[in-house]
């Protein structure tokens, strides 16, 4: 082992003082062993430099590759969701029928006042309340459904007519209860022009016995209601 071998790396790194560096340099020119050591250290230095660059490049590539499948997966999921939405809600193919605005609006208190003044009988055991759902309400005013109740003569006083009409349909709703569309259906789920009539049977104790939803096209319904 050469006595200068311990100072070769410091000499290569130019960390020695000038006089000492000159001594090492003179020795390396003459000593074959030290020259081969210097060559070996230079090779290791070069490989280490390449290694550092490779690590940096590898991490660059790693970073981009890590996000690529995530981006592709997100794009595929979004496309599949869009196709599923278009298949389940084919809005473009539904014929848009204009829906008339609510005819009469009122409140439960005003109805109660009217009923008391007109001498109406109390609610009978089977009363139909029509709940209408229109998508245009949701689009325009945020209200989607209305429950209407207007007892006819037979309905309001069954004792006078002798029979109970359980299938009456209100001509003019005197009470409307507005319910937001989002409470019943997701936005856009019901095509425009289609309404829902909810038949609600109320028992003598005031509790709901039965609810039946029937889809209807508003234009068709309006034509039927006209004389």
């Amino acid at each position, binding site marked *: 082992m050469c006595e200068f071998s311990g100072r070769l*790396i*410091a000499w290569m790194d130019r960390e020695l003082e000038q006089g000492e560096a000159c001594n090492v340099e003179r020795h390396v020119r003459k000593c074959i062993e030290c020259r081969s050591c210097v060559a070996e250290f230079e090779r290791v230095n070069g490989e280490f430099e390449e290694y*550092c660059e490779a*690590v*940096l490049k590898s991490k660059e590539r*790693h*970073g981009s590759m890590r996000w690529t499948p995530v981006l592709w997966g997100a794009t595929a999921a979004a496309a599949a969701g869009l196709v599923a939405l278009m298949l389940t809600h084919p809005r473009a193919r539904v014929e848009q029928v204009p829906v008339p605005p609510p005819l009469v609006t009122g409140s439960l208190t005003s109805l109660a006042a009217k009923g008391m003044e007109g001498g109406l009988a109390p609610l009978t055991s089977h009363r139909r309340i029509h709940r209408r759902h229109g998508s245009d309400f949701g689009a325009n005013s945020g209200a989607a459904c209305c429950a209407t109740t207007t007892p006819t003569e037979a309905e309001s006083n069954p004792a006078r007519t002798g029979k109970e009409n359980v299938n009456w349909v209100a001509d003019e709703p005197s009470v409307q209860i507005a319910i937001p569309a989002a409470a019943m259906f997701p936005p856009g789920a019901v095509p425009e022009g289609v309404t829902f009539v909810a038949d609600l049977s109320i028992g003598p104790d005031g509790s709901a016995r039965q609810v039946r939803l029937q889809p209807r096209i508003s234009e068709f319904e309006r034509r039927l209601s006209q004389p």
Partner: protein
Amino acid sequence: MSDESVPLALPLSRFATDMCEATYLYRELQKPLLRYLVCLGLSRDEAQDVVQDAFVSLQRHLAANGSRESIKSWLYRVAHNQARNRQKSYARRFGAPLDAGVEAIPDEETPERKVLAKEKFERLERAMLTLSESERECLLLRAGGLRYREIGEVLGMATSTVGDTVERAIKKLAEKCNV
């Protein structure tokens, strides 16, 4: 009027000087610093965060009229400490001191050269794992162009100790890479 303009002009000129100095240092040291942090085990994104934080600290240091001596080792020390703090805080993200999942694929022209380069890389990586933490840090800082004195300032070691550590590390690598 002239008395009032002097104190105003001095901070402005100092600010401009600081900006120029910080910009110059950023251009010179951004890439070596990033490489040092990545080789230390940080991910690429975190290394970039640390580099950015280090240069923000440098800007504040210069604005606060901090010492201009050994600014390079000061910057490396800030980045080194931040990296070590992150590694301690997020230990779950840094299982190994060097990222064990790194697989370098060299950009060589022929498949044969690619295989040879990959073998060399793997051999060197195995050799790196035999080094102690201080040996690895000394080698990485030396590869970043720091002098032994500056490495000692970054790692809190004496300059002679740095020389001995570097020599020991290189000899270990030479021995392992010759096998």
